[in-house]
């Protein structure tokens, strides 16, 4: 039992410095402003070998709102070849896997993780998620903190079916830094996990965390109005930089200019409705776009505004009460956002929660149904697949089962919206990276070698 302290208090995520945002890598985005014109710290990820595979007879949720009973999914060479019904022929040379009674979804995607930058064991030496020395650190990049040996990656894969995840800086800072989007493959280097071509995001944070961290040191911001003042001043400076010649390397302004150019996405940690509405106006004032609000426990109060602004809400199912700005969290949040026509993403912000994004979505769906909002299973699956991918700027590459997209696929041993189901097999770019039925397809991080329970089911 963890030290008899609330998890959020014990860790430094949601409550303390926590939570939120930022994203991946952009060949395009990062190049601009870089003197060399080349993407630094480029992805070296290559898909692992796979065999042409046919999943036959399963219920397929394609992630894009489609559902096929007794369906067939074909993938080869790392990509989905075709998705169809029982009449879809299985070409010669494909390994056939019987999916009768089972379910197939796209690989699960977590838009909000701190795996690797707050890895387990959660010792102080591992706290690499918040550069809490200045409220504006857009020059920091989460990928420079990620420890690829974090055992949490393997749990997310095996128990959660997670194939792609966005690692964000924490929320101590108003501008926390760039995120990195990873393929959930074990690797020796972070570069070998980086999702090729994923755009970067910039993590920003509203509210209590920045003002507490810096106000506590007698410096700005110590209030919410101080938060906005620092944001606006910083954006004005960034605009001046962006409108200039950009000849001198300036890591902070390269990130901010990337946002103003529309090439770096904004993942904004923000709980309260009124604050989100203010941030939307700031984005109008400074001429940039907010892609997603993270945590967003009060999105249900302004779901109409969020729909009009085209901003996603990345939310938990039912967290509440751990801090003042989370006091009005309700379990119907996701359903109410969805019902208003706005975009819902289920996120974890948690090394345990990432193992159960499907379950969190199912709870949120049921809470909606009890108030009369009936959201079909096939739409709910999208909350932690395609919607997440789109809000990370990789929706054309993964997040749904569609011909030509990455073969990131989970075969579940039952309905993924049931508590009784688990991933049975997980493919990343067509390579079988986890198999519950084959011990040799169970990754063990360096850290866990020689430890009690090495190679155990976890």
């Amino acid at each position: 039992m963890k030290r008899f302290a609330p998890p959020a208090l014990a860790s430094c995520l949601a409550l303390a410095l926590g939570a939120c945002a930022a994203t991946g890598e952009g060949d395009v985005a990062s190049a601009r402003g870089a003197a060399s014109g080349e993407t630094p710290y480029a992805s070296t990820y290559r898909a692992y070998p796979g065999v042409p595979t046919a999943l036959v007879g399963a219920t397929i949720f394609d992630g894009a709102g489609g559902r096929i009973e007794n369906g067939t999914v074909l993938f080869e060479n790392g990509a989905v070849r075709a998705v169809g019904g029982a009449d879809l022929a299985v070409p010669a040379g494909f390994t056939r896997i019987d999916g009768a009674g089972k379910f197939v979804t796209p690989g699960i995607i977590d838009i909000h993780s701190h795996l690797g930058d707050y890895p387990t064991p959660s010792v102080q030496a591992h706290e690499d998620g918040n550069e809490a020395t200045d409220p504006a650190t857009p020059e920091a990049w989460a990928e420079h903190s990620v420890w690829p040996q974090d055992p949490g990656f393997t749990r997310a894969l095996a128990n959660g079916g997670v194939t792609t995840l966005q690692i964000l800086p924490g929320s101590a800072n108003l501008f926390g830094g760039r995120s990195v989007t990873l393929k959930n493959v074990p690797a020796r280097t972070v570069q070998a996990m980086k999702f090729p071509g994923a755009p970067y995001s910039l993590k920003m944070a509203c509210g209590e965390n920045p003002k507490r961290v810096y106000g506590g040191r007698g410096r700005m911001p110590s209030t919410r109005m101080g938060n906005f003042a620092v944001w606006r001043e910083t954006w004005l400076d960034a605009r001046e930089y962006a409108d200039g010649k950009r000849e001198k390397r300036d890591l902070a302004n390269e990130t901010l200019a990337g946002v103003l150019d529309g090439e770096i996405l904004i993942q904004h940690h923000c709980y309260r409705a009124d604050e989100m509405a203010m941030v939307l106006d700031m984005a109008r004032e400074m001429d940039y776009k907010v892609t997603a609000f993270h945590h967003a426990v009060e999105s249900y109060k302004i779901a109409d505004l969020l729909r009009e602004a085209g901003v996603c809400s990345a939310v938990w199912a039912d967290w509440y009460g751990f801090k003042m700005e989370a006091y009005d969290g309700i379990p119907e949040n996701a359903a109410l956002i969805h019902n208003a026509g706005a975009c819902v993403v289920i996120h974890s912000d948690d090394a345990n929660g990432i193992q159960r994004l499907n379950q969190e979505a199912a709870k949120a769906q049921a809470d909606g149904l009890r108030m009369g909002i009936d959201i079909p299973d096939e739409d709910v699956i999208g909350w932690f697949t395609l919607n997440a991918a789109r809000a990370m700027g990789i929706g054309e590459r993964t997040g749904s089962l569609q011909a030509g997209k990455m073969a990131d696929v989970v075969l579940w041993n039952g309905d993924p919206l049931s508590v009784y189901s688990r991933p049975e097999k997980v493919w990343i770019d067509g390579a079988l990276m986890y198999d519950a039925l084959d011990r040799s397809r169970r990754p063990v991080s360096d850290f866990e070698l020689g430890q009690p329970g090495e190679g155990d089911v976890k």
Partner: protein
Amino acid sequence: MRFAATFSLPLVLGAAALAAPAAAQDFAITNATVALGDGSEPIPNATVVVRGGRVAAAGAGVAVPAGVSAIDGQGRWVTPGLFSAVTDLGLWDVQAVGESNDTDADDSPFGAALDVAPAINPASQHIKISRAGGVTRASVTGYPGGSIFAGQGALIDLGADNSAVLRPRAFQLVTLGEQGGRIAGGSRVAAHALFRNALREALNLGEQEPLAVDTPEGDVDLGDDIPIDARLFGGEATRGADVLLTRFDAAALVPVVNGRQPLYVGVDRAADILSVLALREEFPNLRLVLVGAAEGWLVAEEIAASGVPVITEPLVDLPDSFEQLGATQSNMGRMVDAGVKVAIGGFMGDNQPRYAPQQAGNLVALNRIPGAAGLSWGEALAAITSVPAEISGMGGRAGVLAPGAVGDVVLWDGDPLELGSAPVRVFIDGVEQPLENHQTQLRDRYRTPQEDELPKAYEW
């Protein structure tokens, strides 16, 4: 809440509401899938009868006595109220708002003497929300702060009334392992020395003549076999020369060391568990309960042989610390297979008590993973009902639908362990409970986000 008491309850809302008086009422739920909570599998088409605030009968072929109003279960599920072991229910409004949070007392000179009972707020949203999740009884503890001893925990019910505490000072909690080591001065060695010193002082104190203070009989009704230690009502509570333990703290440990009050011990590492079990060689009367035990499966045989029960967080599967390297979701199943009595618990902080069914359901899911150890459905439900009740000292009286047990009954809209299910009606001591809270009111207000003719503030 005692079943015979009469309370003025808020009106139960909703179409499904009984035309119910506020007090305990005789009722039956028929035509339901009834899970007794004792580890057995659910019984289809069964009936539960509650009379005088207690379960009168439950099972198939049970007749509804004349004069008892019957609720048609319509094939839905009925369970005992959930028993939530080791919680911080009623101790905070907002965790990070220190003024509202009574879970720890870092700056207090006291440790073992701390008693959460007077601080528990029955009107807290945390309690209301958990009640709506089907939780009807719980054990409550503070967190260790300035001392390795968290102090004395209480048993509560979650009824909508002003008497939450069923049994104050129901157990003492101490943390050993990493947390205890840090608090005690920097190492496990220091924690064990501090712990032994405290228990020896309590032993000495216990051997002295009881203080000439009358137990204020009638003021506090424990409702069980654990008397109040008279010493707690008199004497000086100020710190003596020995800064390691106040006299008040030592007195509070007398019932621990003489075995009248259970000692909950927080440890995770296999070696730490064995060290705790070995304490009984030195202090033979200790009634131990292990809390945490993330590596319990590594020493499951030893735990089983000791007869010491365990309260664990079953889904912990990461090496969050160096004392949890062996953590696995199969921990609980393996301990149960070895014969250990294990409850799901540790619902503190963000681990909300209403998550208990989801956690139990996940253990059922493990049965289909080769190499993993799960629980049967009946065992999983028992792990959040009868087993935690037994470990808390309410065996046979709570967490089970058996004749004579408290009338804590939950009617669910589906399989209670499934993600999509929720309580429809909740009874505590036979009294139907309101399920409304801050969250349900917000939900109703923002069903549509737009204002109507007046601002949202006028919709309530």
